[in-house]
């Protein structure tokens, strides 16, 4: 595929401004329809029965009493699904347990009933006979040879013989020689770091509404980051043709990676199929926390060698991530990204993918990267501070630049890491005074960013306005970005374009809204679709003028004769061309379908001040500044919003959020009361500095911005807390009991 390698700077008219978002009024008036807001005539309530055990063989399920209850229209268990293709077998098993329940909250049966009350009652009538098995929820415990085993036969050839079958895969990245590098060091920091599992914490629970007729045609309304993914996955599980399942994305109340997989949807479709009625399913908050896709808990060993001048001579990390009950933790992403901000001669990371009796990890914003950055950036900080060196200068000295061979292999093109560090160095935050019990920390972060399959259709209406259809749910203002890029490319005002999210019947395949891809990839396709429409409009104008179409160019919203014909005819505006479209060949549209590969990587530096209460171990965030490269900020307000939101999710991860499992393997804090995401009063304003180092892979220079902002905060806050406490914090969350214990241990010598 061809990307525009335009490095030239252009003068933008719309891009870079801050117009009102097109879905704003719907969302401030309550009109916007989210997952649970849809109703259909005759609709039933679907509910799921979940395992109360962390690990148990399901010996028998008797649904007869539930089926006999008045108002119950369908009961579904795994037996209803039959064999499914291998590539969705784990998804199927996660949506509805087969032989074994693998975690507390694992779905084992479902009902559809005439009311929520009947559904609740029906669940109690389902008899499940369990044989409770030993369980393991800790990542290190799961790797021990005597650990309870979740699956036999899933270990990859990459794992040395003799390890627990829970260890699924091993990977290794890097270059140079660690031992040589360590010998050149004046100081080696070697520590083990641990992070707790956290949840994306989106405020909207999963919800969907399914219908399926006896003819096999089905419709699904769902809150998801990718309705095309939902279609493809559900079709595979239910043995349907993809074209027979139309999925419409509702507005989505947050996802952050957690809505890139299916949980309820295949079950809702099966209930709809069996009952012949529409079935709506909505998770409770406790179901969301117990049984969707939190991120990994981790255990990471790091060794950093540094000279007394601050040069990193060697960087090593061994990362163990548990990804829940099925293979596929994001450990590889952690192993590839952790040292990516640095130009290192000797670097090596080893990643271990481990299964445990926890819900299967889904993606969470830069999946895998924040934990690796926490460990590595903490070790770099400790080494630098050990020599009394400025941690920003050390990062600048070792920072990656254009031409650096990245720790994960490739050589970087133009990148923005050093720009973020330089901006941090000259920012007033860096030189502001600190008081007693206060500390300042910095850390860098990296994310790859993605592209992927993308379709955009752009239609010119008869009155000369423009509609854009895209296939990615608008999770944080992307309708505004697409509208802006279409308006920019067509040279028309923002308010003459309207962007909608099309259902799966209306466009070709679209990759999930993930990997910070939408503004980059859908934006690219929108620009290309606009370019196609412009070319067609130039052709129509050429017909009218009776000149060659190559002699027409598009500028400022109108076709203009160019070259030898320049000035011979007055420009024809988009509206004028649209008005005569029927006379010149028919409706005008542009579309673009592409696998948008070649997204540009992104870097950030975060700076944070904290204050500790030495009597209670409590941490207060005093000041926070994000410096990040956006390539080109299409709508700066929403770029800032991504920076701020990522930083605050990171603050939660660093200080309070954690999955707490009891000895019994049951989740202890399945609610927003004790799964403590940051509240407004916990926080200061989050300052942002947007840097714009254009991505050569995008016509406007856009880079994804959504994920990088969660990578540095864990380490930045740990570095700040460690500075304030005078003791190195190596375990997240840095909850008050943990900080107080560290302070007391230090005081006790």
């Amino acid at each position, binding site marked *: 595929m061809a990307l525009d390698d335009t490095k030239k700077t252009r003068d933008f008219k719309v891009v870079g401004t801050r117009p009102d978002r097109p879905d704003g009024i719907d969302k401030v008036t309550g009109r916007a329809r989210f997952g649970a807001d849809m109703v259909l005539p005759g609709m039933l309530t679907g509910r799921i029965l979940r395992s109360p055990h962390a690990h148990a063989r399901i010996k028998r399920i008797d649904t007869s009493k539930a089926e006999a209850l008045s108002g119950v229209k369908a009961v579904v268990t795994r037996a209803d699904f039959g064999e499914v293709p291998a590539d969705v077998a784990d998804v199927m098993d996660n949506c509805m347990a087969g032989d074994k329940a693998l975690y507390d909250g694992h779905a084992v049966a479902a009902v559809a009933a005439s009311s929520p009350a009947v559904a609740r009652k029906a669940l109690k009538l389902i008899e499940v006979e369990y044989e409770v098995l030993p369980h393991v929820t800790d990542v290190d415990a799961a790797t021990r040879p005597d650990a309870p085993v979740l699956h036999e036969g899933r270990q990859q050839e990459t794992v040395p013989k003799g390890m627990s079958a829970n260890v699924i895969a091993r*990977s*290794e990245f*890097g270059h140079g020689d660690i031992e040589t590098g360590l010998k050149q060091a004046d100081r080696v920091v070697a520590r083990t770091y641990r992070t707790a599992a956290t949840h994306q914490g989106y405020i909207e629970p999963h919800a969907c509404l399914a219908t399926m007729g006896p003819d096999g045609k089905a419709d699904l309304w769902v809150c998801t980051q990718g309705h095309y993914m939902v279609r493809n996955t559900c079709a595979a599980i239910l043995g349907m043709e993809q074209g027979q399942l139309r999925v419409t994305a509702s507005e989505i109340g947050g996802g952050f990676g957690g809505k890139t997989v299916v949980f309820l949807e295949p079950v809702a479709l099966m209930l709809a199929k069996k009952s012949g009625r529409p079935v709506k399913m909505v998770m409770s908050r406790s179901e969301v926390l117990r049984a969707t896709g939190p991120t990994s808990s981790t255990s990471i060993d790091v060794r950093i060698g540094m000279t007394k001048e601050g040069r990193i001579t060697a960087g090593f990390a061994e990362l163990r991530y548990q990804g829940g009950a099925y293979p596929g933790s994001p450990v590889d*992403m952690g192993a*590839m990204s952790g040292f990516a901000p640095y130009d290192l001669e000797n670097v090596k990371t080893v990643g271990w993918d481990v299964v445990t009796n926890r819900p299967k990890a889904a993606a969470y914003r830069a999946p895998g990267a924040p934990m690796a950055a926490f460990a590595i950036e903490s070790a770099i900080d400790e080494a630098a501070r050990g020599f009394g060196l400025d941690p920003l200068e050390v990062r600048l000295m070792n920072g990656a630049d254009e031409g650096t061979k990245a720790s994960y*292999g*490739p*050589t970087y*093109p133009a990148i923005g890491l050093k720009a973020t560090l330089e901006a941090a160095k000259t920012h007033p935050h860096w030189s502001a005074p600190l008081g007693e019990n206060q500390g300042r920390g910095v850390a860098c972060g990296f994310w790859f960013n993605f592209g992927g399959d993308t379709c955009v259709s752009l239609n010119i209406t008869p009155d000369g306005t423009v509609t854009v259809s895209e296939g990615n749910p608008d999770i944080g203002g992307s309708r505004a970005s697409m509208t802006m890029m279409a308006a920019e490319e067509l040279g028309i005002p923002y308010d003459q374009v309207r962007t909608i999210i099309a259902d799966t019947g209306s466009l070709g395949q679209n990759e999930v809204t993930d990997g910070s891809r939408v503004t980059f990839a859908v934006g690219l396709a929108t620009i290309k679709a606009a370019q196609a429409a412009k070319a067609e409009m130039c052709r129509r104008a050429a017909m009218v003028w009776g000149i060659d179409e190559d002699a027409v160019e598009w500028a400022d919203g109108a076709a203009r004769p160019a070259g030898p014909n320049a000035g011979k005819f007055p420009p024809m505006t988009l509206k004028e061309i649209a008005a005569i479209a029927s006379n010149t060949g028919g409706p005008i549209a542009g579309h673009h379908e592409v696998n948008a590969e070649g997204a540009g990587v992104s870097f950030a530096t975060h700076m944070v001040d904290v204050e500790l209460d030495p009597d209670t171990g409590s941490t207060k965030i005093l000041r926070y500044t994000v410096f990040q490269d956006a390539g080109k900020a299409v709508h700066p307000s929403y770029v800032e919003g991504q920076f701020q939101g990522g930083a605050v999710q990171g603050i939660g991860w660093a200080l309070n959020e954690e999955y707490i499992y009891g000895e019994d393997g049951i989740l202890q804090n399945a609610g927003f009361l004790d799964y403590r995401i940051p509240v407004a009063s916990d926080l200061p304003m989050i300052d942002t500095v947007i840097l714009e180092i254009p991505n050569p892979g995008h016509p406007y220079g856009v880079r994804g911005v959504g994920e990088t902002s969660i990578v540095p905060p864990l380490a930045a806050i740990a570095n700040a807390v460690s500075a304030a406490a005078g003791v190195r914090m190596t375990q997240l969350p840095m909850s008050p009991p943990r900080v107080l214990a560290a302070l007391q241990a230090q005081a006790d010598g």
Partner: protein
Amino acid sequence: MVEVVLWGSLADQAEGARKVEVEAGTLRELLDGLGEKFPGLRPELERGVSVSIDGRIYNDSWFQPIAPDSEVVLLKRLKGG
């Protein structure tokens, strides 16, 4: 011939080599060539990989051209959130 850099543990499946050479002008030829020349790589190739070609990352585009002097690095399949 194109020189392909493998990630550390992948080298174990390719006779210990961190850098291997295959005859390829496109991404598809590259992936096919690798699997043919180093059967040990096949499980990982089947699980899916990403490929960095001159600093840009590709997942699926078979006909992405690769020049003989291109920098080609095999990566674990990337996933986002």
